[in-house]
Structures are given as structure tokens and as C-alpha cells.
């Protein structure tokens, strides 16, 4: 099998191929290592780990030879550089974590390695997961493997953002420089880049995947999750990633179902909600059209499409941008130069703290830490933080009420397709609006998935989002797969590894 066709396999297909010994794990890892190298121009990786990949592939081949294959044996996975990987540089894409080699492995990646997966490397991201474009990384921006079609209105060869914060993971999967990747989603950071890069990204229910060993941004909003090529792949990978972790007090003590078994293809009688408040001002017509098309696809498959109302929708973003920075300002206080990372020696202790953190944090991180500090400070706590948490309760109630009428909700994932690097950086608020469709599910802790459903006028992927009840990933996946089948998204980005000549 040629490298190119090896790289084109989905996780489900590769899993079968390895078991049937159509190719060895070593061949597979070699092909992906080459792809990682080839995709360097996109800057998707901060730290490739080709030797480790080969070592792990060797163990896979040994197991497969004995007929003792593990669920993800030999699957080459990229890890967002927010997950601590033992002995491997972990940076959160920040200068302040220079040189940090964790003496421990995150629970989620431990589970993946225990399932036999193979580590390709650590992917780039927005610094400390704060961003929607992957342009705030200390290691430079990531490029979306998609380009605008020449001849289309803005059609040029300008590099586009992959979305963020899990931009590196999204690009890697889309460019076939990883078969699957881990991401984290705090305000949309898995789903939005998945939408921008034409792949599948899922944010499970809060507490479904352990946060232990994942560098914390906003504790009550961070969700580890899979970034993959198909809904089936998401089901397989999520099963391996999920599970109660006693080391994480917010980890849900619920069993992990066989998500793959939920992909029955049958959604007859299922009720799909279309929230009217998601029809925002200035939303491109093509996105609205795709949304309606999505509803039609589901109706044709036998679902009942229902108009619903989520009145608090517009307040989700401001609530998020109070709560997340507040938690982040506290979570990032530990980066002070004393026990790990960058240390700038300067005068007194406080001077050392101040100068180290000023040098180590980028502008967006600094902005959010300052806002977070402010909204928690004396005199402002009630007006901002407490207020936002009350609004959050109302948002959860909105969803609870909606789910009395429907079983899942269909919306677009993002209010636009990928934009050019540098195009939206002047106004932070404009950047924040990228998350308008994704943030509510983070505030409510509900599972949501983005699948590529169509192309924009410029030839860029557009995603549709399905969200559901807490711990009902099964319904979400089932509906998403039906949508995926109807959408038949076979488009491939302009850059794809293994596609030379």
C-alpha cells in the first residue's frame, strides 16, 4: 500500500487493516512520521516524537503477532501540547513553560497508550488554550491545510487559520499528518477548528474525560476530547479516552458505554431542535443554507425537526468571557519561575514574578489573566463573576427545558469559514465572537460534536454541530453519523501529506 493510501485510511479502517495484517504497525508509523515531517510547513507540531512512535509501533506488532491486539493498537495519534506527557517536552505553547518535562503522564493519554495507540508528537495550540485561531502560540501560528479557491472572492494563497485553540491537532488530522488527535474544548476549541479544517471534533460531557494531567485553563469549562476524520472514529477514540478518574474530583463516576455500538444509523422518531436564537445578525447566508440543509437531511432520515428557543444564547459569550478568564487567572498563578519553566532573575521576589510572567505570557494570555483578576477582585466579584455564574444557571435551565421537547440540537458550528492569518487580530471581541455557537455547550457541560457538512463559496469547509443531553453522547454520535452520511463530505484540503506527485 502506498504511503498516500495508508494515510487516507480512517481509524476504523486502519484498525481493521492492522488486525488483518494488511500492513504492519511499523510501516504505518513510518508513513505517519514521514507525513509529520512533510507537514512541517504547516507548523502543526511543536515536538514530533518519531522514535517513540516507532518504539510503540514495535510493541503493537509484537502484540498483534500474538493475537493480543488492544483497541487502538498501532493507531498514530497526535497529542495537543496541553496534555502532560511524561518525559516529553510539554509547553502549552507558552514561553513560560520552556523546558518543562513532566514527571507524570495525563490520565487521558495514559489510557490511549494503554489501548495501544502510538504517539506521533505534541501539537501546536493557542497559548494556554486561549484563542480561536492558533495565532497566539509562542511557537508561531499554525496553517490550515485548506486554501481559498483561486477565483473565489477572496481567493488567494494567503495562509488561513485552522481555528483554535486546538489548531495544531485539527491541521494534523486534516493534512493527514496524524490519524487522530487529542484536543481540549473550553469554549469551542475542538469543534471550531474541526469545522475550519473539515474534520470531526467532539467535546464530550463535562467530566466524561479526566482533566488530570491536562494543563488547566478554565477548570469548570475544560473538556478533553477526540479530533478525528469520521464520526465512527470519534466513537472509537472517545471510548478509549473516557472513564472515571479518582484523581480528578470533577470526573463523572459513570460507566463508559460502547459508543461505536450506538452508531445504528437509525434516528427515526428522534426529535431535533433548531434554536431560533442561533440565527445571528450578519451570519453568512451560506451557513444558514447549510443549516437548513442539515435539518432536511435529518428529516429525510426520519427525525422530527422542531423549532426551539434558547433565550439566553446571546449571554453565553459574555458569561464565558468572565468565568473562563477568572478561573484562568487563578490557574495560571503557578507560573512564577520557581519550580518549572522560564525564570527571569530580577531583584526582589515580586520583581522576579512580575518580570518572568510578563516575559513568559503572550498578549492574549495576559489580557485574560488581567480581566480574570479584575472580575474576581474586591468590589467587582458580585457584579461580574457571581452574575456570570447566575447567568450560567439560566443557560443550563434553557437547555434542560429544551431537552424536554427534543433529543438533540442542530446548529452551525462556527459563524464563518476559516479566515486568513492576521485578518481578525485587531479587536479581541471580534475574535471572541468565533465561539458564539460553541460556548453554550461548555457552560452547560453538554456533549457536542462538529462534522464537516459542506463547503463555503470559497471552497472552505463548514461544520454543523449536534449537541445533546448530558452523558448522552450516544444519541449525539448516532445523529452525527446520519448527518455525515447524508453530507457525503469527500473534499480534501489543498495540502495533504503523502499526496506528492
Amino acid at each position, binding site marked *: 500500500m502506498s504511503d498516500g493510501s495508508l494515510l487516507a485510511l480512517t481509524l476504523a479502517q486502519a484498525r481493521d487493516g492492522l488486525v488483518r495484517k494488511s500492513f504492519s504497525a511499523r510501516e504505518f508509523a513510518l508513513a505517519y512520521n514521514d507525513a509529520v515531517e512533510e507537514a512541517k510547513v504547516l507548523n502543526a507540531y511543536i515536538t514530533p516524537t518519531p522514535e517513540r512512535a516507532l518504539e510503540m509501533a514495535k510493541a503493537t506488532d509484537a502484540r498483534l503477532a500474538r493475537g493480543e491486539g488492544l483497541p487502538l493498537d498501532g493507531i498514530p495519534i497526535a497529542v495537543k501540547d496541553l*496534555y*502532560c506527557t511524561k518525559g516529553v517536552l*510539554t509547553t*502549552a505553547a507558552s514561553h513560560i*513553560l520552556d523546558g*518543562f518535562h*513532566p*514527571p*507524570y503522564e*495525563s490520565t487521558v493519554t495514559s489510557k490511549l497508550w494503554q489501548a495501544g495507540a502510538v504517539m506521533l508528537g505534541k501539537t501546536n495550540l493557542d497559548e494556554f488554550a486561549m484563542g480561536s485561531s492558533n495565532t497566539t502560540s509562542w511557537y508561531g501560528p499554525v496553517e490550515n491545510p485548506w486554501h481559498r479557491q483561486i477565483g473565489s472572492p477572496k481567493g488567494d494563497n494567503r495562509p488561513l487559520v485552522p481555528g483554535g485553540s486546538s489548531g495544531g491537532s485539527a491541521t494534523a488530522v486534516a493534512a493527514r499528518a496524524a490519524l487522530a488527535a487529542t484536543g481540549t474544548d473550553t469554549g469551542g476549541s475542538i469543534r471550531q477548528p474541526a469545522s475550519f479544517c473539515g474534520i470531526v471534533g467532539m467535546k464530550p460531557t463535562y467530566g466524561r474525560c479526566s*482533566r*488530570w*494531567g*491536562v*494543563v*488547566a485553563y*478554565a*477548570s*469548570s469549562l475544560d473538556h478533553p476530547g477526540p479530533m478525528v476524520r469520521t464520526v465512527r472514529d470519534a466513537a472509537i477514540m472517545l471510548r478509549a479516552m473516557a472513564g472515571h478518574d*479518582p*484523581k*480528578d*474530583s*470533577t470526573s463523572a463516576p459513570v460507566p463508559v458505554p460502547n459508543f461505536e455500538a450506538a452508531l445504528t444509523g437509525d434516528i427515526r422518531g428522534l426529535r431535533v431542535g433548531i434554536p431560533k436564537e442561533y440565527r445571528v445578525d450578519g451570519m453568512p447566508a451560506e451557513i444558514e443554507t447549510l443549516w437548513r440543509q442539515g435539518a432536511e437531511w435529518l428529516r429525510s432520515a426520519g427525525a422530527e425537526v422542531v423549532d426551539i428557543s434558547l433565550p439566553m444564547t446571546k449571554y453565553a459569550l459574555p458569561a464565558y468571557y468572565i468565568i473562563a478568564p*477568572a*478561573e484562568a*487567572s*487563578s490557574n495560571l*498563578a*503557578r507560573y*512564577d519561575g*520557581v*519550580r*518549572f519553566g522560564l525564570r527571569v532573575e530580577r531583584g526582589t*521576589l*515580586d520583581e522576579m*514574578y512580575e518580570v518572568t510572567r510578563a516575559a513568559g505570557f503572550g498578549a492574549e494570555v495576559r489580557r485574560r489573566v488581567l480581566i480574570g*483578576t479584575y472580575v*474576581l*477582585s*474586591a468590589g467587582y*466579584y458580585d457584579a461580574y*463573576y457571581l452574575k456570570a455564574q447566575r447567568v450560567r444557571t439560566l443557560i443550563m435551565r434553557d437547555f434542560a427545558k429544551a431537552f424536554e421537547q427534543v433529543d438533540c440540537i442542530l446548529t452551525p458550528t462556527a459563524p464563518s469559514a476559516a479566515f486568513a492569518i492576521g485578518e481578525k487580530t485587531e479587536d479581541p471581541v471580534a475574535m471572541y465572537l468565533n465561539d458564539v455557537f460553541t460556548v453554550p455547550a461548555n457552560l452547560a457541560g453538554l456533549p457536542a460534536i462538529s462534522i464537516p457538512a459542506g463547503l463555503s463559496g470559497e471552497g472552505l469547509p463548514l461544520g454543523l454541530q449536534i449537541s445533546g443531553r448530558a452523558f448522552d453522547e450516544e444519541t449525539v454520535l448516532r445523529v452525527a453519523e446520519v448527518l455525515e452520511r447524508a453530507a457525503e463530505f469527500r473534499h480534501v484540503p489543498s495540502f495533504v501529506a503523502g499526496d506528492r506527485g
Partner: protein
Amino acid sequence: MIEGRTGPWETVIGLEVHAQVISKAKLFSGAATDFGAEPNTQVSPVDAAFPGMLPVINRFCVEQAVKTGLGLNAKIELESVFERKNYFYPDLPAGYQISQYQQPVVGRGKVALDMPDGTTREIGITRLHLEQDAGKSLHDQHPTLSYVDLNRAGVALMEIVSEPDLRSAEEARIYLRKLRSILRYLGTCDGNMEEGSLRCDCNVSVRRPGHPYGIRCEIKNLNSVRFVMQAIEYEARRQIELLEEGGVIDQQTRLFDSARGITRPMRSKEEAHDYRYFPDPDLLPLVLDPEWVERLRAELPELPDAKKVRFVSTYGLSSDDASVLVAEKETALFFERAAGHDPKAAANWVMGDLFGALNRLGVGIDESPVSAEQLGALIDLIADGTISGRLGKDVFAEMVATGTDPAAIIEAKGLRQVTDEGAIAAAIDTVLAAQAEKVAEYHAGRDKLYGFFVGQVMRATQGKANPALVNQLLKEKLSGK
């Protein structure tokens, strides 16, 4: 009441005590809590606030806090919340301390103090909450550097806040002693101020009697009861002087300088701390099962106040004596095991000779060379006349030195009391015969010589003559046979 230049002033004191919880592991991590380990050898990545680390609460630490609340007659809050107290300091690796602010696990309670004049004062407890201890910074190892040891970071602390009900340094001392006693009874804290398992911050203000509370200053860095008292006295006088000169008290945090016996403001720029408390999003609210709490209440050991009441009624001890004996659980236990037939004798022996010996040896009662059973045996041997009370003290001293049973010592040294009337009479005869001049003086009116004759008889019998018999026979012989 302190007499100032312009009239009387009342000192108002509230104490915030930080008590280190006795537990094997820390409050939110699985690292060990042993005292005195090599630096940074009892530190979990959670304690060191490494990226991605998360807290998980230790059930036993919660239990210890609830037991302490029950022992303080306080309300147990079935739902409480952990909040982050945010500030920067090198011994606080996360840049925040996990503590409790608006909803502590224990609410209002009270402690009864036995005052020296026999009265009882009730001191209110405002609250008790659980929080993480910080690590230790050493500032004296190097001219320009501080060294940080995180072994202590994350150990469970109970912060016990009293109402501002204390009115003198002496009351503060008694309160601390009582609090420490309760904690040790419960086994929730060993109350060792020298090792730092009990620390005290003091809030001091002064006011004219009957007037509202004045502005208070907080005094930190008090690691002995003596320093607490000195600091209170100094601070009260400082504030009074300032106010009498027409000044205003600056609400501030001060440190106690034990070398100079004064309090002074902290040198670091004291911008009012804005701790930005908010509920810790890595933790959920702590919800306690009321049945679990009741079970803990039922399993509480008998506490000092109740034990004192029982000692007075069951053993007929005086209130003062009972107070002394119940102050430490180990002492009370020792006493009760020795009380057997003669509780009053046991009380006297424990509070007198035993405490004296332990002080000399510098050990606590749990390391006593004499066991309660041995003391009981000695008391019995004196009571049944085998040995005189006076010689009993010598036997006791020997027991302390060698740990041997009293019966064995008595045998080995031949100290059995002589109760043979004939032998005593013979000894008396010998003495009186040898002291014929003095006998004549006695008969002539010098009654004081009686004691001299007794002494001579005791010497002649190596102290073994039964004193009652000596008296009886001596009187007979002196009065004319």
C-alpha cells in the same frame, strides 16, 4: 482592665488558631505528613502545583474537623464549600490556598474556661474551617536568597476562630491551653506549638468599658503561649498610649519580635490583601451525611469538661484537683488506673510526686517510668500499713529511678514498716533512756521536745516504725507508763 493615663481601658482579644490535623496523608494529596523529613521529600506534584494537577479531599481530614467541631460544641454545616484564596508567596506554589470562606464546615460553638478564681468563662467560637498549610521558607540560610521546602505544603489545617470574647493575656493563655487539651483529647491535633502544629494569630484592640469595639491589629508569628501573652500585653499598651495621645489606630498586620518583646508592622508593602476568593472549580461542595456526623458524635471520647464533672462526683475530688487531672487525656487515664481504692491519694501522688519526677526527667506522662498500676500498688502498700507514708516517698523515688515494682523495692531494702509493738516499745525505751536530760526538760514543760523524741525513735528504727504506734506508745511512756 488596664489603667491608662486618662482612665481604664478594656483589652479585647480574638484568637485565630491554626491546628495541623493528625492524619497520615495531606488534605488534598497522597503525600505523607511526617514531621522532620528531608526537604522536598514529602511533596506530591499536586502539592507543588505542577501543571494539570488536581486536588482530591482526604475523608479522614474531614472527619477530624467534624470531630473537633463537635468537641467545641459547634454547629456542623452539612454543606460547605472550598474556595481559593489567591495571593503570591514562594511557599504557596499554586499562587492560591484552598481554604473555606463563606461556607465553612463548622459554624458557631463555645469553649468553657476554668478560671483560677473558680468561676467558668464561656468563650465563643465563630467558626472552624479546613484549609491547606503552606510550605516553609527559610530566610536565614543565605544573605540574599530564601530556601523553600514544600513538605508542609498541603497538610490539613483547621483554622479555629474565636469570638473577640477574651479580655486579658491570662485568659488567652487559659483559652489556648483548653483548646489544646480538647484537640489532644480528640486526637485531631497534637497541639505542639514548638513544632508548629499549633499556631496562633492574635487580634487585639482596646476600648473604654461599655464602648463599641475599637480598631484591631492582627499579630502574627506567635509560636508559643508565652509569646502570645507578651504580644497581647505589649500591643494593648501600645494602642492605649497611642489613643491617649489623641492618635488613631492603623488597622494593620503586625509581627511579634520575640527578641525585643514588641510588635511591629510588617516590612513588606502592606497593600490591603485582595484575596479574590471564589469557589474552587476543581472541587464540588462538601456534603456530609447527617447520620455519619451523628455516628462521629456518638463515638467521641469523654472530653475534659465531662470528665471533670465525673471525677468530682465519682471520686470526690475538688474542682481544682479534677481540673488539673483532666487537662491532659493521658494524665486522666493514668489517674483513673491508679485511683482504685483511694482516689484522693492517687490524685495527690499524681499531682505531687509524679508530676515532679516527670518535670525533672523532662518527659510526659505517657513516658512515665512508673506505671499507673505500680503507683496503685504503692498506694495500697501504704494504706495497708506495710510501709509508712514517709518511706513511701523514698520507695517512689526508687521506682522512678529503676522502674521496679514497689513490693520488690520494699523487700530488697527491707523497708517493711515495723508494727511490732514490742519492738517499737523497746526502741522508745532505748531513746528515752539515752535522752534522760531531755525527758526531764519535757516533763518540766518543754512540750516541743515531743517531736524530737519521735524523730529519734524513727531514726532508731530506720524510719520503719509505724508512726501511729510510735505516737501511741511514746505518749504512754512519757505520761507515766
